[in-house]
C-alpha cells in the first residue's frame, strides 16, 4: 500500500477532494489550519481570517495503481496554485 501526502491551499480543498472521489480512493483524511512555507509563499496563521485561507494537509492510504491514476490531475492543481505531493510506503497494521 502507498501513502500519499498532499499539502496545498485550503481554498483548493474541494476540487482536490473531487479528484480523489472521482478516482474512487478508499478514503482520505484532512487536516486544515496548517501553515508553512513553500518556494513561493509563506502561509501564516492570520491568513485564515483574511480571505486567503491556510493550507490543508490531506493523507490518502491506497493501492499503487490509484496513485498513478491521480498523478496528472493532482499535479495540474498543484502546478497552478502551488503545494506539494509526496508518496511513501505504508503497510496496514
Amino acid at each position: 500500500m502507498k501513502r500519499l501526502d498532499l499539502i496545498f491551499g485550503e481554498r483548493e480543498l474541494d476540487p482536490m477532494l473531487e479528484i480523489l472521489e472521482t478516482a474512487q480512493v478508499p478514503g482520505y483524511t484532512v487536516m486544515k489550519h496548517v501553515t508553512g512555507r513553500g518556494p513561493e509563499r509563506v502561509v501564516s496563521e492570520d491568513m485564515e481570517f483574511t480571505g486567503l485561507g491556510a493550507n490543508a494537509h490531506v493523507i490518502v492510504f491506497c493501492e499503487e495503481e490509484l496513485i498513478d491514476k491521480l498523478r496528472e490531475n493532482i499535479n495540474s492543481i498543484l502546478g497552478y496554485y502551488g503545494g506539494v505531493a509526496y508518496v511513501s510506503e505504508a503497510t496496514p497494521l
Partner: protein
Amino acid sequence: METSLILQNVLTPPVLFFFLGTIAVLVSSDLEIPAPLPKLFSLYLLLAIGFKGGVELERSGLSVPVIAVISAAIIMSLLVPIICFLVLRIKFDVFNSAAIAAAYGSISAVTFLCAESFLENQSIQFDGFMVGALALMESPAIIVGLLLVKLAGPKNRPNSKVIRFKAILHEATLNGSAYLLLGSLIIGFLTAAHNPAGIEKMQPFTGKLFYGAECFFLLDMGIVAAQRLPSLRKAGSFLIGFAIFMPLFNAFLGVFVAKALELGPGNALLFVVLCASASYLAVPAAMRMTVPEAKSSYYISTTLGLTFPFNIVVGIPLYMGLVNQMIPGAT
C-alpha cells in the same frame, strides 16, 4: 486642526488597541490571538454592521438621495481600480497590477466602522444607510480586476481554462464576507419592517457589545498588520508609496463626488473612507483563486500592512479635515 483631529483619533480605545497589537510584534512579545478567534470577531463585526445598516436603511427608506449615494459608490468601485491599474502598470505586470487594483477599488469594513466610531466621538451625525454602499462595493471591484486581466493579459494564459466567468461572478458576489454583510443587511431591513421588537432584542449583541469587540479585533489587526511589514519592505518603495498616496488620491476623488452629491459632513467622510480603503477579505480570496499568477504577499501586505493602519490612524482625521474644507457648512 488636522493634527488635533489625529491626536483625538489616536487616543480612542480602538486605535490604542491597534497600536498595542502593533507594538507587541515590534518588541516581539509572544502575545497572539490564535485562529479561529480573529474569524469570530470578523464574522461578528460583518453581521452587526450589516444588521444595523439594514435597520437604518429601512428607516430612511430607499429614497432618491440614498439611491444616488449607493450608485455613486458603485461607480467609484468601478473607476478606482482602473486608475490604480494604470498607476501600478508602471512597475508591475498585468496580474499583480490587476489584483492590487481590485483590492483598492473594494472596501474595508473595519476601516469603515473606525470612521463611524470617529464620527460618533466627534458627535457628527451620519446615516446608517451608508452601509448599503459598503455592502455593494466589493463585487464590482473584483469583476473589474478580473476583466483587466482578461483584456490586458496574455491572450493564451496557461491553465486559463480553469477560470470560467461564472466562477468569477460567483466569487465576486458570494464570497463569505460579502455574503454575510449583504445578508445581514437584508435581515436587518426585514426585521425593521416586520418585527421591530426583534431589533430591541438584538441591540445588546449587535449594538452595545460592538465597540468592545471592535477594540479586541483591532488588537489582532495590529498584530497582523505589523507582521506584514517585512514582506512590505521586500515589496519595494514603489508599492509602499502606492499604499499611502493612492488612498489619499482616492479620498480626493471621493470628496469631489461627495460634494457633488451634497452629502453632509458625516456621510461625506464615510463616502471618502469607502473610496480610500482597500479590501483584505473578499478581494484577496477572489484573486488567490482567479489570478494565482499575482503574488498574494503584494496585495495583502499593502492593504493590511500599510493602507489599513494609515487610514485608521491618520487617514480618517485627515479626510475629515478635507471634508471640512471642501464641503461648505460642514463645520
